[in-house]
């Protein structure tokens, strides 16, 4: 057990280092660009806010006249006390509270899509490997390769156009119906599920292929191993061999892939949110870009990166729990 604690701590160290790199990049990027970062960042502020607020914002991003290392320390101090500045497009709301609302919707949408697509993809992949050369195995891979060639957000546009605009089956934007108020009431919950259905389905379709192919390829390797032949020779039902002996073992590399894929899936999820005007992180990001809201943009970059790093560590823990070999 000691070894696994040591392993998890080492991974935590790595993720902390990656987080520090992201935080430092966030500090460096505005300073490496041509021109005065403060001028660019607060160009849209002029006339809207008092000089006192601008001074406070300069302080938050460390854009003072101090030497660079001191600027960095000021920036770090504000960052660790949760101060990400004030959003320009949603003045005077602080960036951190805007991100918090967006994060809830993003986790709900991308999280459910990710779980559905993982379960569906791995089951289909297992079946395709089991009936190798069958319908599933011969039709799906080329179809998925073709589907995967379309840009993620373009598929979302097409789906929205056909099912939202053309057929009118699904709402065109937003996360819940206009009349309802967020809370624990059935019109709101049902409405939220209804609004999430189409964007989630798009994300599932676009990411299904990856899980399916990965699972299929691992399964094929495992089906050729001796213990599967032995299980068969013992006369176990094929259902038992498929699920308890083969699929269970093939799942492990796929879960490791789950962590690796998070970053990519997230990118696609952000773009999907933009198409469906779904008020999550991606939609906030595009709003920030369009309004040149640099504080919000940088806050989003930081929170999204930190969320991905955290999720990766979580996957490490899950892998450790599932695979006894890593626990030795």
């Amino acid at each position, binding site marked *: 057990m000691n070894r696994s604690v040591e392993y998890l701590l080492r991974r935590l160290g*790595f993720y902390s280092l990656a987080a520090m790199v992201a935080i430092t990049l966030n500090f460096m990027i505005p300073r490496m660009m041509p021109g005065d970062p403060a001028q660019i960042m607060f160009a849209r502020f002029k006339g809207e806010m008092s000089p006192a607020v601008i001074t406070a914002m300069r302080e938050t991003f460390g854009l003072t006249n101090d030497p660079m290392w001191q600027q960095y320390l000021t920036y770090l101090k504000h960052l660790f006390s949760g101060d990400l500045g004030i959003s320009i497009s949603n003045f005077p709301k602080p960036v951190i509270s805007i991100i918090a609302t967006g994060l809830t919707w993003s986790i709900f949408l991308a999280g459910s899509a990710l779980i559905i697509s993982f379960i569906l993809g791995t089951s289909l992949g297992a079946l395709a490997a089991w009936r190798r050369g069958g319908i599933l195995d*011969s039709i799906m891979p080329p179809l998925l390769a*073709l589907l995967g060639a379309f840009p993620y957000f*373009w598929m979302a546009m097409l789906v929205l156009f056909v099912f939202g605009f053309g057929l009118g089956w699904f709402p*065109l934007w937003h996360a819940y119906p206009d009349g309802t108020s967020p809370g624990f009431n059935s019109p709101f919950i049902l409405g939220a599920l209804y609004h999430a259905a189409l964007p989630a389905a798009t994300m599932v379709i676009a990411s299904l292929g990856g899980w399916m192919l990965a699972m299929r390829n691992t399964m094929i390797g495992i*089906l050729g191993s001796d213990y599967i032949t032995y299980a068969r020779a013992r006369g176990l039902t094929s259902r038992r061999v*498929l699920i308890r002996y083969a699929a269970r073992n093939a799942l492990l590399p796929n879960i490791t892939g789950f962590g690796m894929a998070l970053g990519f899936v997230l990118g696609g999820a952000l773009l999907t949110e*933009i198409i469906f005007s779904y008020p999550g992180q991606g939609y906030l990001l595009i709003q920030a870009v369009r309004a040149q809201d640099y504080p919000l943009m940088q806050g989003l*970059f930081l929170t999204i990166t930190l969320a991905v790093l955290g999720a990766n560590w979580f996957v490490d823990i899950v892998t450790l729990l599932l695979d006894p070999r890593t626990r030795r």
Partner: protein
Amino acid sequence: MNAGLLFKQMLTNRKALAGMILFGLFVLMALIGPWMVQDPIEFTSIPNQPPSLDNWFGTTGQGQDVFAQTVVGSRATLAIGCASGFLVVILGAVIGGIAGYLGGRTDDFLSLLINIFLVMPGLPLMVVLAAWLPPGPLTILSVLVLTGWAWHARVLRAQTMSLSQRDFVLAAKVTGESSLRIVTAEILPNMLSLMTSSFIGATIYSIGAQVGLEFLGLGDISNVTWGTNLYWASNDSALLLGSWWTFVPTGLCIALLGFGLTLINFGVDEIANPRLATESLWVRKLKGRATVDGSTPVIEGGVR
């Protein structure tokens, strides 16, 4: 395997040939297409017209010809996609190669760097970088290279490490060849097929990411590229007006180009790793010969 031989084999591989023809058509379109069509930014006719004889792909929300925009857009998109794919693989090969060949402390440090860039989500970083830099093709290119190199560095590092332990490299070392010569004459030629497929993969990724960034409005929106075409389609609320023709042609072109490149990659993989080609043969042979419960029969002393 040298470059000429690889190319010759690609011509005889069916998948690679089909992919190269598809890719070639798009290159032709990018090279001479812009001279054959009308001005893509001129306001030629009534806005939001569906496809007709005058405007084959219809008109945009501002009355520009969609067909002209699709053809002209291919040039910038392809150029930046290929340039970025090339630079990404070169940067990946240099960093991965140094890490894999030298090993030790250098490898520890570079591997850490590679892993950090791999674990960071690409899109938010690209957006922040592109938003701070002045909009334009050069910005998009540098952002793509900066966020895309790590994956290829990792793959090429592993390949360099395995190659530098092979007998022929060790023999070259013993005979006192210089490091430079060992790398350029012994190791690099053996990584050619891997670098080719890396380049194709990187190009596919770059085209997708580039279109995505420009769609978000982070490119130079006065240029005509596939990404800005989609940006304007969304900006002119094509989805709400029902003008599907403003975004469908561009998306289909991107997908066809990506599919063609994927086919080339399948072909290169089969040439470099002949077992893949025979594997699909085995699948074909096993078809219709499944056991009672539908599982794959176990072949004694089989393919391995």
